[in-house]
């Protein structure tokens, strides 16, 4: 137990100190991204071109959509889903198969999103019963991966025609659809978590599950809602991802889960729940995409890229954690 010493810092000073610390915490990542851009524009010759920025935004969009969705989960105090990759692959397979069979990419997208929602509902229900979300999503991920491998027989599922890639290539005024989807989905996720009763419950359950229960907020219902928001993100991201690659296999995209978790973490959403925002997670995804793209342009090898990114994520997360602690004292 810690003792409370008679503090000499008055309430006003303390409030000012807290505000400063929280201010630093909230602006750390945007400042870092700007710095990285400036440094890269100077040191990497072909960096600040339309093509590079477009590539960065495209790379951000898919991770960003999932990170914005996963933020709802993290906010509700349910940590992360470690089964992202498996769900994306299954939804992707269903998208291609449906599109191939019916010739309608919209029907394909609908089936993909519905599949993600069903998977999310199941996992949300189990976690809502009080089971550990990490264990549940990890286990569900394995089951989903196994199912996908059995459905596809381990074969590559390919697009029947180039039409299946229209979601990735379509653009409005030069802005690719995935980027527009990122903006739209983030706006929706933000609205849901900040302006609706569901979002309010998500935050409150994340802050304190027991107080939430005593205030009449259902942990089960809130957890399921959080999983559903996340699942819509997975469904959309899966369609966009497969529209880019035009093919998918059961063991594709192993890096997705880690990237999404990292985006949420360095975005500054509290692992313990309650505090955070989908927008922050998208900024986190933008940071990861930018750093990766710079290293690609600078010719850094893949192993080194993962290493550098890992170190940056760990350092950032620790810094944000320390700032949060200072800000709440």
């Amino acid at each position: 137990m810690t003792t409370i010493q008679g503090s000499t810092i008055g309430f006003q000073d303390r409030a000012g100190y807290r505000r400063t610390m929280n201010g630093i915490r909230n602006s750390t990542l945007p400042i870092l991204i700007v710095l990285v851009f400036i440094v890269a524009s100077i040191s990497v010759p072909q960096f600040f071109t339309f093509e590079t920025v477009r590539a960065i935004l495209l790379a951000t969009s898919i991770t960003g959509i999932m990170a914005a969705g996963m933020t709802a989960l993290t906010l509700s105090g349910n940590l992360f889903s470690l089964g992202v990759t498996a769900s994306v692959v299954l939804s992707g397979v269903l998208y291609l198969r449906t599109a191939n069979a019916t010739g309608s990419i919209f029907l394909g997208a609908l089936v993909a999103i519905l599949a993600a929602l069903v998977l999310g509902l199941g996992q949300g229900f189990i976690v809502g019963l009080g089971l550990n979300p990490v264990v549940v999503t990890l286990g569900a991920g394995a089951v989903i991966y196994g199912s996908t491998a059995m459905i596809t027989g381990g074969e590559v599922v390919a697009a029947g025609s180039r039409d299946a890639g229209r979601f990735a290539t379509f653009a409005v005024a030069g802005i690719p659809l995935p980027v527009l989807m990122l903006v739209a989905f983030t706006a929706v996720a933000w609205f849901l978590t900040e302006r609706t009763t569901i979002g309010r419950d998500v935050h409150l359950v994340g802050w304190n599950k027991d107080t939430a229960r005593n205030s009449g907020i259902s942990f089960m219902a809130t957890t399921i809602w959080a999983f559903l928001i996340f699942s819509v993100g997975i469904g959309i991201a899966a369609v966009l991802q497969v529209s880019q690659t035009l093919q998918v296999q059961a063991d594709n995209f192993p890096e997705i889960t880690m990237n999404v978790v990292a985006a949420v973490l360095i975005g500054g959403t509290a692992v313990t729940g309650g505090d955070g925002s989908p927008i922050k997670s998208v900024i986190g995804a933008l940071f990861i995409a930018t750093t990766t793209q710079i290293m690609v342009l600078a010719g850094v090898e893949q192993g080194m890229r993962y290493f550098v990114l890992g170190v940056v994520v760990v350092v950032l997360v620790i810094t944000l954690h320390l700032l949060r602690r200072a800000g709440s004292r």
Partner: protein
Amino acid sequence: MNATDPSRLEATGISKSYGAVKALTDVDITLKPGEVMALLGENGAGKSTIVKIISGLISPDEGTIKIDGHEVELHTVSASQAAGVAVVHQEFSTVGTLSVAENLVLGQREASRWWAPRRLNTSARAILARVGLEDLDPSTPVEKLSVAEMQLVEIARVLAKDAKIVIFDEPTAALSDAEIERVLTVVRRLAAEGRSIIYVTHRLGEVFEIADQVVIFRNGRSQPPQKVSDLNVDKVITMMIGRELGDLYPQRAETLGEVVLETHDLKVAGTRGAVNLQLRRGEILGLTGQLGSGTTNIMQAIAGTEDVLAGTVELDGAKLDLSSRRRGIVSGVAYCSPDRKRDGVFRGVAILDNLSSPWVRRVSSFGVVNRRKESAEAVRDASHFAIDHTRMQTLVGNLSGGNQQKVAVGKWLGINPRVLLVEEPTRGVDVGARAEIYAQLRHLCESGVSVIVSSSDTHEVLGLSDTVATFYRGRQTVIKPAGEWTEPDLVREVMHREEAFA
């Protein structure tokens, strides 16, 4: 024992403040070898603060402590242990997954670094025999033990440390009579070995069984020590209370209305008898009892968060759905938990969102929160409850205990409650804010809400309530209007007759 005996422990002029709140003022305690001293007092009187100081958990602001005539600085727990002090805590400090023997060496300074289970078990057996646990296998994990056995292992841990001064902090609060007897036997044996004992308790019966002298705490001050042989239960109770019911409490209701809530042979998990209570319009009904008396379980059952085994609760003549908190809220039952930090408020969240948490759906359309409406209602509730409505964005965790409690109660105004259930309404709240909270509760009553308060503070229950019901070990015992109780009666009833008259 004669007057020239050196004192084992001599604490003089001990004072301690937390911010503006004086927890201890000028406390003196003297303890001789082989002596058992009982510390008595109401909640918040300062007993646990002096125990924490002697055990090195907190440092006093003023005063000196001498052990065997030498002045000592007990600024850390290990300094206190080195000086020969050991504490048997009320909460268990054993590690559940480790074995009994392993727990016995845990935290011992001179324990061997080598983990030798067989040697450990042999020495453990000898120690366990001294607390009457000779039949217990030392390799049993502690989590498999009964509460009484855990308490005895806790005491055995202290024996393993060979301390000169042993502090018992309410060691029997969760035990049954037979189990208490085992603890008392061990205490007597320790005293006979020449150790000095400080025994903190709420149970008066025990005091007369084992103590040599009694020190009573009141409002952070210690009264001069009294020989047990010069005392009786009534004297002790008068000394503990020491004051009349003052201006702290608002006027009681003059007339009570029709019955609003009624329990019919309600049986709740964790209690033993059936509970029959009637709550009338505009009434404050006080439930009181010691830890484990069942008041908490009954309150939570009516709130919808504890299992109901049998019986029903009627609200305005209709059967109340006790299946969840949500249903209770819909029917107009508000509930404030006894531990606001744990499950009463959201500390990391602004006052506004805390206040609106039970009723935010009412100010929303199609799931979208109408923030203007929410804020307007919350501000109104805040001003009702004397919460500074210009600071609605302040995080509740940054408020004082009293203001946090106001938020914990005030958030229920917005559901237009028929019945408000409040457990421990002023735990950890300073005197000024207490009076305010009492006045607010009474004010709510006058506006037509009926209130049930449960508290282990008999003074508070008596001062605040119109009707008082007592509980003892899971059974409802006596219920009568507050005017027909006197405080000594109530204290005696709560501690229970047989025990107090023993």
